[in-house]
């Protein structure tokens, strides 16, 4: 006897699993949908991650060169991701010469790329020598030799041989003579063709930032020498350079893709993790709902002699079949999602147009394996609870019993809640960027805690609502009250995922909204100049700045250059590198035009060489006090040891690192200023503004200035909003599915009600009340989860505990909670479609 009951034959098990799935399609739909969506998401995010690591550009202008040589573009840190410099790195001194001297090199051609403008329209200028990289020929006239010579494309719509052409560099116009025309450049597939002109090599070099040397060399190998051999040769012969061969040459050609790569890697990895976490909770919720509905079947199996172990393996078998099927189906749409993400990314400038994604089978395979394994682990835990139930207990345990949580789960939940609250409060003690990081992590802790304690909390919420509804005599209310108090588990299954979605959404959107808002406030309060002058897209050359300074009526001028800096320090014994927004100011005129809220030291000291000012937060992170030496890498990665001469409060608005204007410009691609702040003689204010507008500049109210510190975040914040949108979509889908399934399961209840004499309106109103209750509980719980973290972040950023949130957060709350109402309404309509006697009648 014992032997027989100890194992069900494999065939028998398969049969039971198959029929189990067939009979409970409805309740498996929840697991199927959440697994499917998780695989789609993770496959898509996996492709994004892999593309960040391996995707990129096919070379266009550099496609004929064997090896492209550039400066070292990143600083690799041990045990850390490489920091990629925002500006193009300089080549080491004499690199071009030592590469030319290699005996397998045929030729070395320097390449310059300069942004010019013709009446406000962009024109890209290259040095004439670069035509031999791109195989462009002179079609008429002669090549440019003098500083004022220019060669235009043969089909240039605005300029012809012999014309004079006014091109501006950084807002300073210069007149050129068209001395020749050249053939068309190689065409790139993705991006729109740009208007191209050629200057003499000397003229091009003179317009380049820094020390006027080329930062990119195109190297051609002698016949019979492979690009790889040559690259290896160059690496040994000219140390301190990066070499690019094959497809990789595109990386050198489109350096701005570097930032895009970082975004892709961050996007793929961080949201992949979140998606998996959410999937875990959603599958757990769907599974316990499904198993709960089948308790009687399990009890029957237990009565006829299956052991808990057998039951558990049955459940796992079913879950495996369902989730594996969902996983396999999800892979295709996952790659489609990646394609869609790619389009969204490039149309929003997160990756430059033409950036190619890598589509390998690995993201799909790993997504299926990862998700199915996760689902099985969750199923194992959930199934344990159901399979151990004694046969009698299962038969008598009604659907009305309150949700019971295991002690382990309860304790973990409580500990996480405590940890989350503590971390939220940490800005009261901590300062610096850690003060933002801790509450942000707290948000996640609290969300996980709610995932664990959710059924209990939702149950409590429901009974609170019940007390409010109890006194009513309206039929819909009486029924809704009975249903919610009697079946808190059903409500919790919907409330918890919705609350998680709302909480996650609020923390993510709220954090970026708080930071962006504070940055804007800092700029508004911090710019004291009379006028703000900008030249969008083209910047200001030194010449242009001089001409503004010379304008009659301008009393004070502060030209500001913007880039990115890396601060290297030792954190907890390990070297660390953090990137921040960098601004270069005129140390002498800055105090009259901007108020950085200097806490210690003086900005005027920035006129001394090798000095830096830091925001108080960053100084604290770097552990630097006034007079200490700080290791700073400028935009192009050039390391300097700078003395800390001032600390200030408005780092979010203006950039956390400030040095003198000259120092910033010497280490950027363009060598141009970004904006100019001026004070004017009040009587000549209008006159100055009109004059500058005529010169093609944009003159504005200083308070409209964009916050520099927040600028680098805006791309990130778009990416995280997008990810959030996707994840909330996932949560929404799963919740709608759960609610639809749970509502459809109530067909018999609806039928009985109608047979007893309830009309359809009363059933709708009962369901509407339940739906609204779910929506309100989810909103309240979601806000409760997010609020401590947001208050902590707000306190850390702005000193105000009450977070200043964007309207987006309200949209998240509204949309997520109304999902409950829509899903229940839809499912109720479906459930009421069949005639009640057909549903119940007296035949069963």
């Amino acid at each position: 006897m014992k032997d027989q009951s100890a194992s069900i034959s494999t065939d028998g098990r398969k049969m039971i699993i198959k029929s189990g799935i067939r009979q409970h399609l409805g309740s498996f739909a929840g697991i199927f949908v959440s697994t499917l969506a998780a695989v789609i998401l993770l496959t898509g995010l996996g492709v994004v991650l892999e593309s960040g690591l391996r995707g990129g550009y096919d070379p266009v202008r550099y496609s004929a060169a064997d090896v492209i040589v550039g400066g070292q573009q990143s600083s690799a840190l041990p045990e850390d991701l490489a920091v990629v410099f925002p500006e193009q790195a300089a080549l080491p001194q004499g690199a071009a010469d030592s590469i030319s001297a290699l005996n397998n090199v045929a030729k070395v051609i320097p390449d310059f790329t300069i942004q010019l403008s013709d009446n406000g329209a962009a024109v890209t200028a290259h040095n004439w020598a670069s035509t031999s990289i791109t195989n462009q020929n002179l079609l008429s006239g002669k090549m440019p030799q003098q500083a004022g010579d220019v060669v235009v494309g043969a089909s240039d719509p605005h300029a012809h041989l012999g014309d004079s052409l006014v091109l501006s560099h950084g807002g300073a116009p210069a007149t050129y003579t068209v001395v020749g025309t050249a053939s068309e450049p190689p065409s790139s597939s993705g991006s729109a063709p740009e208007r191209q002109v050629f200057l003499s090599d000397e003229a091009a070099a003179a317009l380049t930032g820094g020390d006027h040397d080329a930062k990119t060399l195109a190297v051609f190998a002698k016949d019979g020498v492979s690009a790889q051999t040559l690259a290896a040769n160059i690496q040994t012969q000219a140390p301190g350079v990066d070499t690019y061969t094959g497809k990789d040459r595109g990386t050198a050609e489109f350096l701005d893709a570097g930032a895009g790569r970082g975004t892709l890697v961050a996007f793929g990895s961080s949201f992949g993790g979140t998606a998996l976490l959410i999937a875990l909770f959603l599958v757990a919720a769907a599974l316990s709902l499904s198993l709960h509905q089948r308790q009687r079947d399990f009890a029957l199996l237990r009565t006829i002699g299956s052991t808990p172990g057998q039951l558990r393996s049955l459940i796992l078998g079913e879950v495996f079949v369902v989730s594996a099927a969902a996983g396999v189906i999800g892979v295709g749409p996952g790659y489609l999602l990646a394609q869609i993400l790619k389009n969204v990314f490039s149309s929003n400038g997160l990756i430059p147009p033409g950036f190619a994604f890598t589509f390998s089978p690995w993201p799909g395979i790993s997504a299926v394996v990862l998700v199915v394994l996760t689902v099985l682990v969750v199923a194992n835990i959930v199934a344990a609870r159901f399979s151990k139930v004694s046969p009698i207990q299962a038969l008598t345990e009604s659907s009305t019993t309150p949700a019971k949580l295991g002690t382990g789960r309860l304790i973990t939940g409580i500990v996480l809640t405590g940890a989350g609250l503590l971390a939220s409060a940490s800005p009261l003690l901590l300062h610096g960027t850690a003060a933002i990081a801790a509450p942000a992590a707290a948000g996640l802790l609290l969300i996980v805690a709610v995932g664990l304690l959710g059924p209990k909390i939702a149950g409590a919420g429901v009974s609170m609502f019940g007390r409010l509804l109890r006194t009513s005599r309206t039929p819909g209310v009486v029924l809704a009250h009975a249903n919610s108090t009697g079946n808190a588990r059903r409500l919790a299954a919907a409330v918890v995922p919705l609350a998680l979605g709302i909480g996650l959404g609020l923390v993510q959107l709220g954090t970026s909204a708080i930071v962006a808002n504070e940055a804007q406030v800092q700029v508004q309060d911090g710019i004291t100049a009379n006028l703000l002058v900008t030249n969008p897209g083209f910047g200001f050359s030194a010449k242009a700045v001089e001409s503004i300074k010379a304008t009659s009526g301008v009393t004070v001028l502060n030209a500001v250059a913007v880039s990115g800096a890396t601060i290297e320090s030792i954190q907890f014994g390990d070297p660390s590198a953090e990137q921040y927004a960098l601004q270069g100011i005129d140390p002498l005129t800055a105090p009259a035009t901007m108020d950085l809220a200097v806490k210690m030291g003086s900005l005027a000291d920035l006129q001394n060489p090798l000095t830096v000012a830091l925001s108080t937060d960053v100084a604290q992170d770097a552990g630097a006090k006034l007079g200490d030496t700080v290791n700073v890498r400028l935009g192009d990665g050039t390391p300097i040891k700078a003395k800390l001469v001032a600390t200030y409060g408005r780092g979010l608005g203006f950039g956390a690192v400030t040095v003198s204007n000259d120092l910033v410009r010497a280490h950027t691609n363009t060598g141009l200023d970004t904006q100019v702040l001026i004070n004017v003689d009040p009587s000549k204010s209008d006159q100055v503004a009109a004059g500058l507008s005529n010169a093609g500049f944009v003159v504005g109210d200083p308070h409209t200035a964009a916050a520099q510190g927040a600028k680098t975040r805006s791309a990130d914040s778009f990416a995280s909003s997008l990810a959030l949108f996707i994840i909330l979509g996932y949560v929404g889908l799963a919740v709608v599915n759960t609610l639809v399934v749970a509502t459809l399961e109530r067909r018999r209840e609806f039928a009985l009600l109608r047979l007893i004499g309830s009309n359809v309106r009363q059933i709708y109103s009962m369901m509407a009340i339940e739906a609204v209750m779910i929506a309100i509980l989810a909103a309240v719980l979601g806000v409760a989860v997010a609020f401590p973290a947001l208050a902590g972040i707000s306190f850390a950023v702005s000193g105000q505990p009450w977070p200043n949130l964007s309207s987006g957060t309200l949209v998240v709350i509204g949309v997520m909670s109304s999902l409950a109402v829509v899903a229940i309404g839809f499912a109720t309509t479906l459930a009421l479609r069949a005639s009640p006697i057909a549903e119940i009648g007296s035949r069963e």
Partner: protein
Amino acid sequence: MRKAEHQPAGVTGVPANSGIALRLDSVQKQYGSGPATLTALNNVSLALYQGSFTAIMGPSGSGKSTLLHLASGLDKPTRGSVHVGSTDISQLSGDRLTQFRRDHVGFIFQAYNLLPTLSVEQNITLPLILGGKSADNAWLEYLTNAVGIGALLNRRPAELSGGQQQRVAIARALISHPEVVFADEPTGALDSRSARAVLDLLWHLARELNQTIVMVTHDPVVAAASQRVIFLADGQLAGYRDGGTAAEISDFMTGLEA
């Protein structure tokens, strides 16, 4: 008070002074259309007096449940009319029909009579709740004591035995003083002992309250206790018998099934 109103009537025979509680005139019910049309009930006419206790018997598939559904307004006849009291319910539809049923018809199903999240008391008063009326407490107390569940009012259906659940269903069917109570094999899901107890209860209550009851049953002993047994075969009336013994009824049934 109530007891005075509901004087127990004679056990057999139809009170001469009472009116018609239910009347079916040439009722036909067809399912499906075209060549697949199935006539579940054909040209059935009958009238039942107020306070009568009628059993309906017939082979499986003969149309007993269909007859009950049409008579109670749960479904509509394809042809013919149905009167409950003086109301032609085949003319009612939508909310008017629902409301009529709520106030004038009681129904006891074989199983799944109760809403799992409602308490016993709420389940019993559900027709009143749905009608926005409040329960007459004396009547509720009388009914629940009469069916023997007075002590279980705050329990939920899952905490009751099958027999207790059917008693709750009986109380609910009676709570609104309906014109007719219909019961479709109300004890079909119970073992024979509790079945007999529940049926006894229903029968005695009906007599005590002068309640019109129409019940489908397969049990000749139960049928023998009713005043009239109506036999159905192939969707048509196949005869009736007043005051027959269980053995006679059983014989008649065997004849029908052959």
